[in-house]
């Protein structure tokens, strides 16, 4: 079981990801912005963060960097509908895994368990 923080401004998608992960026995929290995600992160210790790349306030990669600066060494997965080289490179530069949208849920499940 993992504690997974999901950050995506598309609430319906974030909820679905959460529900799917919960079916696999994981515990989840959902946030709609990077700021909200950071607030969750400081009050709830998660193992994995799944974040959209394009958030209303920060990029997903930036969110991962902030989490790392806070000393939270978490496993991160950046997801995005934008699959251009610079987005992928920026996401991966943080050490996060990149998963393109539409999200392959079995791949996401494997990454969460890893």
């Amino acid at each position, binding site marked *: 079981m993992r504690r997974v923080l999901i950050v995506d401004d*598309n609430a*319906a*998608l974030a909820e*679905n*990801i959460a*529900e*799917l992960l919960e*079916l696999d026995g994981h515990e989840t929290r959902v946030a709609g912005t990077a700021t909200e995600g950071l607030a969750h992160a400081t009050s709830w210790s998660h193992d994995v963060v799944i974040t959209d790349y394009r958030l209303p306030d920060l990029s997903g990669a930036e969110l991962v960097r902030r989490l790392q600066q806070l000393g939270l060494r978490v496993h991160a997965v950046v997801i995005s*509908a*934008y*699959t*251009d080289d610079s987005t992928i490179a920026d996401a991966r530069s943080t050490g996060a895994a990149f998963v393109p*949208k*539409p*999200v392959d*849920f079995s791949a996401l499940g494997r990454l969460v368990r890893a």
Partner: protein
Amino acid sequence: MKNLTFLENMKLYVGFGPASSAALREAHPLVAPHFGPIIDDFYATIEAHPGARAAITGGAAQIQRLKGSLLRWIDEVFLGPHDEAYFERRARIGRMHVQIDLPQVYMLTAMDRIRVQSLAALRAGSALRTEDAERMITALHQILDMELAIMLETYREDLLAKNRTAERLATIGQFAASIGHELRNPLGVVESSAFLLSRRLAQLAIADPGLTKHVEKISAEVQRSNKTISDLLELARSRPLTRRPVAADALVAHAIAASSLAAGVEVQVSGAAGVTLDADLDQMSRVLSNLLVNAGQAMNGKGRVSIDVRREGGRAVIRVRDDGPGVPADLRARVFEALFTTKAKGTGLGLALCRRIVDAHGGALTLEPSGSGAVFQIVIPDAAAPPG
């Protein structure tokens, strides 16, 4: 003042009149015996220059045909009549050069070879009076310069038209890309909701065929939409090529493996051994795979597809032929247009994408006329002759 045509304006500018036409007709018998060597030299020079040679894809047979056309062309230079119809024919030749992507520089340099040798022929072998020779030489310069001006003008017009099309495609591409990205999110929700729904049904032990069918339909259609979006985005993106020498047989094997063809589709490969292409393996494999998948679908999953590879004058030619019903003649020109499809469930993007990739390789993807079945032809530079 009367509006002059492009031709009248040029004639006026260089001072080309009936006397010039007459001088050229007088020059014809003096130069005509040299036409053969001039034409041979013309094509020998093209073959010696990779950049010019690249425009000729049909090998020796094509050169033979072109020599015949050049003979008629050069004959007409001297014999005329130098009227509007004459120059209209010339403009068509200019357009042909744009179509085959002949770099402009070779029109100028090739014309120079004809000019220098025709002048040499005029100056040599005859006992012309100086002023007669001068008249003929001047007329020859005038007509050849007008020929060049016409070719360059048509070249420019066609290039502008080509650029306009490219710009329009780029605009459509950007538009499509932003819509595509926007649609990926809601589709992701629909897809995951359908998946959650099926999990929930299983959990509740509800085995209702009607319900299951609808959930499956939702998933299948979402996947199809995702595919359309991915193709659209791919079309809009234009990835740079990573070229390297690629063995044709490896490319073909790669493409066949990627195509997941129906069991009833038999693929026959010939001539691929020993041919090496200068290509981006992933992208070119995508092209070939797309053609194979289309072929399989055209034959309803049953029949034979043949892939024939051969080298032809510094280029590799790959032909993909199927046993299907073929493409009706009136649709042949349109199959490469984006969003045009003949399939009930096609996106109309596959062949547009294929052509873009082959074009980026400096090659050509065409649908060849054929008696039965569809024959697609890819022509790309082979690795032995990198683009000059």
